[in-house]
């Protein structure tokens, strides 16, 4: 079966971002960009399913600026077979628009498994997979920590607040990955070289009849309130004294 994996180009997880002085957004000039960590886990899961013989072809799609090609190439170096870049202005797109474009890609490609990260670490929305499920009328296994494909069904173990829940979905189905699903591999240099030769198509939102402008307007972006500097205590006695008499929390 064919698997489609959606990946997003985001600021690297280890970068401490700064808000722009004019409060229009976060300053991303000269900041290291990477594949969103949850998306990387989705790619790894697809590659593992291919290695097991369940999946025959992996198509990776990214929606974003021209530079998102780098993230598609990274996914190909990990084992994806071909790529689709839907070139669009990130700042205009909302989760709903991304889901609509992905629906267009799914309609064209007809994958049985659609893998996404559970959330992007920039907007922290945690919406696209669920929205795509609704638009396709397909089942959704969100926050997956285990995926088992059996015939025309897939069993997904999900991380929920109290523990774990297992659901069974009819294929085609959407899976969004949680951190514990797998540990992504590193791309070996020969695979990075090979990835450069793999096919990569470029499309636009208009090719799928989608207007990319979100109806959510970001009015301003601010830095969170700073915590006032704390104090180092020298002993347990001092700590207990402070908690009892100064902070009054115990």
């Amino acid at each position, binding site marked *: 079966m064919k698997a489609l994996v959606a990946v997003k180009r985001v600021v690297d997880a280890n970068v401490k971002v700064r808000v722009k002085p004019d409060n229009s957004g976060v300053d991303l000039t000269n900041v290291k960009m990477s594949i969103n960590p949850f998306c990387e886990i989705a790619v790894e899961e697809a590659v593992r399913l291919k290695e097991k013989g369940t999946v025959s072809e992996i198509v990776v799609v990214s929606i974003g600026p021209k530079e998102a090609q780098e993230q598609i190439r990274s996914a190909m170096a990990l084992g994806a077979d071909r790529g689709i870049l839907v070139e669009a202005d990130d700042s205009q797109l909302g989760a709903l628009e991304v889901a609509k474009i992905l629906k267009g890609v799914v309609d064209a490609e007809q994958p049985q498994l659609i893998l996404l990260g559970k959330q992007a670490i920039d907007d*922290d929305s945690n919406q696209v997979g669920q929205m795509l499920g609704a638009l396709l009328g397909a089942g*959704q296994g969100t926050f997956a920590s285990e995926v088992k494909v059996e015939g025309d069904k897939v069993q997904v173990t999900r991380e929920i607040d109290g523990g774990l829940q297992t659901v069974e979905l009819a294929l085609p189905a959407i899976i969004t990955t949680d951190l514990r699903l797998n540990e992504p591999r590193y791309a070996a240099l020969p695979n990075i070289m090979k990835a450069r030769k793999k096919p990569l198509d470029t499309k636009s939102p208009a090719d799928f009849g989608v207007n990319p402008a979100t109806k959510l307007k970001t009015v301003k972006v601010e830095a969170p309130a700073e915590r006032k500097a704390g104090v180092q205590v020298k002993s347990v006695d001092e700590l207990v004294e402070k908690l009892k008499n100064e*902070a009054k929390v115990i």
Partner: protein
Amino acid sequence: MSILVIAEHDNKALNGATLNVVAAAQKIGGDITVLVAGSGAQAVADEAAKVAGVSKVLLADDAAYANQLAENVAKLVASIGAGYSHILAASTTTGKNVLPRAAALLDVSMITDIIAVDGPKTFKRPIYAGNAIATVESGESVVVGTVRGTAFDAVAAEGGSAAVEAATSTGDAGISKFISEEIVKSERPELTAARIVVSGGRGVGSGENYHKVLDPLADKLGAAQGASRAAVDAGFVPNDMQVGQTGKIVAPDLYIAVGISGAIQHLAGMKDSKVIVAINKDEEAPINAVADYWLVGDLNTVVPELVSKI
């Protein structure tokens, strides 16, 4: 304004997170209806009817809603929700699973993790792991959003007297099936609602040591227990105890971080706590920058001493 709040529950009792969502709904203002979708959930509906500020409860009782499968519940929410100005749910795994699906069925955008209400259509939410706060204005006819519980004080669970009405079930979508559930049992308070949280990180060394060192402290303080991602990944404790961007968001009165360095992703889950205490052997640990009080020392001696002195 008419606001639909999706109740969070286990078919037996209403989850406290719903009370925080009602509080956010009151900030928006207008009539508040609570939707209870479940199986054999009459007791939940009765409980919801008593919540202060709720004017109506809708009970959709059907086996299809027993396990809160998103495919079935989102269909119901979309069919009922179109007539409301707002649809809100808690930012729990259930809320985050169901609500975006319902929003897409209604063809509207959604706002995740609302932490403040600036106006009926204007909200604040954290982005970039809480390192920036965005003010977002919705241009949609129906505003759909999840609410971060720790940002709103819960309304009273008693005092209301809403009428309970039956809602028409939209049935089973037939594309998903519940198989099993594995719930971690604990005698301690629920992590996201606890007044005091004691958390351990990689520094505790092992699962055995986590319990040896931190259980007595949590017992003494009546605290919930949490963990950093490093401690969960190392297998010290189950993943539902993880505090952080990818785990649970907590904001207790007192958060005690033991053997936790303070990675960005962990800070996103706890830096709104009122008082933060860090116990770490590393003087340079990033957690010290957000801690109100920090003590440099070996947690294996410091924590037992702390237990004996409080």
